[in-house]
């Protein structure tokens, strides 16, 4: 048995995914989860206690421990400083999505990691979803024939109950559109091996209008270089008492017909007499786990990860173009600059 464990730490607990990542890291063979640092001391102490994890007094202290990799889970607008710190310390980075809240930051992060010779991976767990991997294989085999269009949804609940900053335009870079557009954009780019050339979007703020100032409804239409068109529903439209957090679905129209994909259909349906709503315990494979294992494998094998910083940039660019389109009422051409 090798004792050469990779040391991984988490920088910031602003993103709720950090909570899941701790369990994932502890369950990854060959990985030592060294602990985390958080600029919110109260939150840091709370989660350190909850997860029985070591809390570093500062990001610098965590990096001084010479981890092999760091997961950056700060607010979207605060990924850049942490990524740059980690890169400067020679630490490989997995950054939460969206990669940043603007393209300048995203590019700076890519450049910093390239200069430091460290990996920059964007946290797009759906790339590692077992159902979506099977769809990708089906597409690559040519089983569906020519692909014409995708009708996709990545709807969720308005996330303020989990973290307030998700509905703060400064910290999140926007609302539902910023939160949800990037996942499906990345999946579609991966499926089609083609880039988005045009984006149209409409947004509104009718759902939760009295509690948030960012858009809660968003519909996008993407056109790819290969002519495929795809719509994305990025709305925070699931009611707060919906049986699960949301979901990710797609319907593919191709030469051979219709293919329906529900990436989160692998649930039980469970009713409790004491509650008026049922729940859907998920029994499918954990895509977060597979994503973290890829990050670890890329570090070990000294290779580029399957999802890169560039992928994060491209997906962010689509979300930003969508805001421009929603503003102008007309489609916007890519690249943005």
């Amino acid at each position, binding site marked *: 048995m090798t004792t050469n464990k990779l040391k991984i730490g988490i920088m910031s607990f602003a993103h709720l995914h950090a909570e899941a990542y701790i369990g994932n890291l502890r369950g990854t063979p060959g990985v030592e989860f060294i602990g985390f640092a958080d600029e919110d001391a109260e939150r840091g102490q709370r989660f350190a206690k909850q997860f029985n994890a070591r809390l570093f007094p500062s990001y610098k202290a965590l990096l001084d421990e010479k981890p092999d990799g760091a997961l950056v889970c700060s607010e979207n607008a605060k990924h850049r400083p942490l990524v740059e710190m980690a890169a400067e310390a020679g630490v490989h980075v997995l950054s939460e999505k969206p990669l940043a809240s603007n393209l300048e930051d995203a590019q700076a992060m890519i450049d910093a990691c390239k200069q430091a010779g460290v990996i920059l991976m964007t946290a797009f767990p759906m790339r590692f979803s077992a159902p979506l991997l099977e769809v990708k294989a089906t597409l690559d085999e040519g089983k569906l024939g020519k692909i*014409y269009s995708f*009708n996709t949804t990545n709807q969720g609940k308005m996330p303020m109950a989990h973290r307030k900053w998700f509905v703060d335009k400064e910290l999140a870079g926007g609302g539902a559109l910023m939160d949800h557009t990037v996942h499906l954009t990345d999946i579609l780019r991966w499926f089609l091996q083609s880039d988005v050339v045009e984006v*149209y979007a409409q947004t509104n703020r009718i*759902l939760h209008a009295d509690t948030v100032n960012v858009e809660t409804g968003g*519909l996008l239409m993407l056109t790819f270089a290969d002519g495929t068109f795809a719509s994305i529903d990025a709305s925070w*439209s699931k*009611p707060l008492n919906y049986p699960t957090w949301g979901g990710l679905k797609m319907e593919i*129209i191709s030469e*051979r017909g219709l293919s329906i994909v529900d990436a989160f259909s692998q649930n039980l349906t469970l009713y409790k007499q004491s509650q008026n709503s049922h729940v859907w315990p998920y029994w499918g494979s954990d895509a977060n786990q597979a994503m973290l294992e890829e990050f670890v494998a890329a570090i070990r094998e000294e290779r580029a990860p399957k999802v890169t910083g560039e992928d994060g940039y491209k997906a962010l660019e689509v979300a930003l173009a969508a805001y421009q389109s929603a503003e102008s*009422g007309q489609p916007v051409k890519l690249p943005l600059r």
Partner: protein
Amino acid sequence: MKAGIVGAGFMGGTHAAGWAETEATIAGFADSDLASAQSLANRYKAKAYPSLEAMLNDVDVVDICAPTHLHHALALQAAAAGKDIICEKPLARTVEDAQEMIAVCRDANVKLLVAHVVRFFPEYAKAKAAVAEGQIGQPAVLRLTRGAFRPKKPVDNWFTDFEKSGGMMLDLMIHDFDYARWIAGEVESVFAKNIASAHPNAPVDHGLVILKHRSGAISHVEGSWAYPPPIFRTRIEIAGSDGWLEFDSDKSAAIDLHLRQQQNDAPDVPLPGSPLSESPYTTQLKAFYNALLNNVPPPITAQDGLAALQIALAAIESAQRGKAIFIQ
């Protein structure tokens, strides 16, 4: 009341079944294909006519079930004879035609009812009622899907002739454009993509359309002539400020047959349907009959038909030009 049905095809037969459930008399069927008219006439003990003109004197109301591009001329002819009119959707092939039909009918003091049957499907009516009662608050994001295969017809398949039918986005998607407007109000802008525009030689069509309503609501409307026969699916999702409503024809299928296929025996023209004690087409016909008989406002007006037509034509224009189209 004596009803005359123009167009003895599939839809003429469907309307006839509805008329048969009313107190009205089906006086005749008019079709240039006299054999088809005769066949329906025999079934309903009515007369067959080679044209609307030949039938006009024998009827009180003209029910237009002819191909879309013929609606305008037939309606003008019926109005000139002072007959009330029921017209299949789309009201007309162009906005100008529809506007003229409305003006002529108004001047002739005859009624013009447009058959957007989806409003009479119980699942759609129930969803509308739930929204109207405020059960889900203000509609914010709508998702409507209507998907099937391209209609086949042994001869003269006008459905696939864009000049005659307007294609899938006019013939099929107009149902959900009307429904979206019924739920969320007037439409301000339309952005659309479809296969017919992106790949003109493709044997199928599929469209994705984003509507922005003046109320602020946004709608995603999907229509398909790209599914393998005999699939026909419809779906509704309405996210509102105080709740969520969904319908999925697959999930609410009362009967799901999984039989070894004998032959590919899909119908020529796809029709949705759940087992019901009354066909929605009959519900619609009864409502129209009541509006005509008792001179009460119809549940859907010719203006509604015109508005739905405007949205559908804007979608076609958007898909062709690659721009969002603003209405009015």
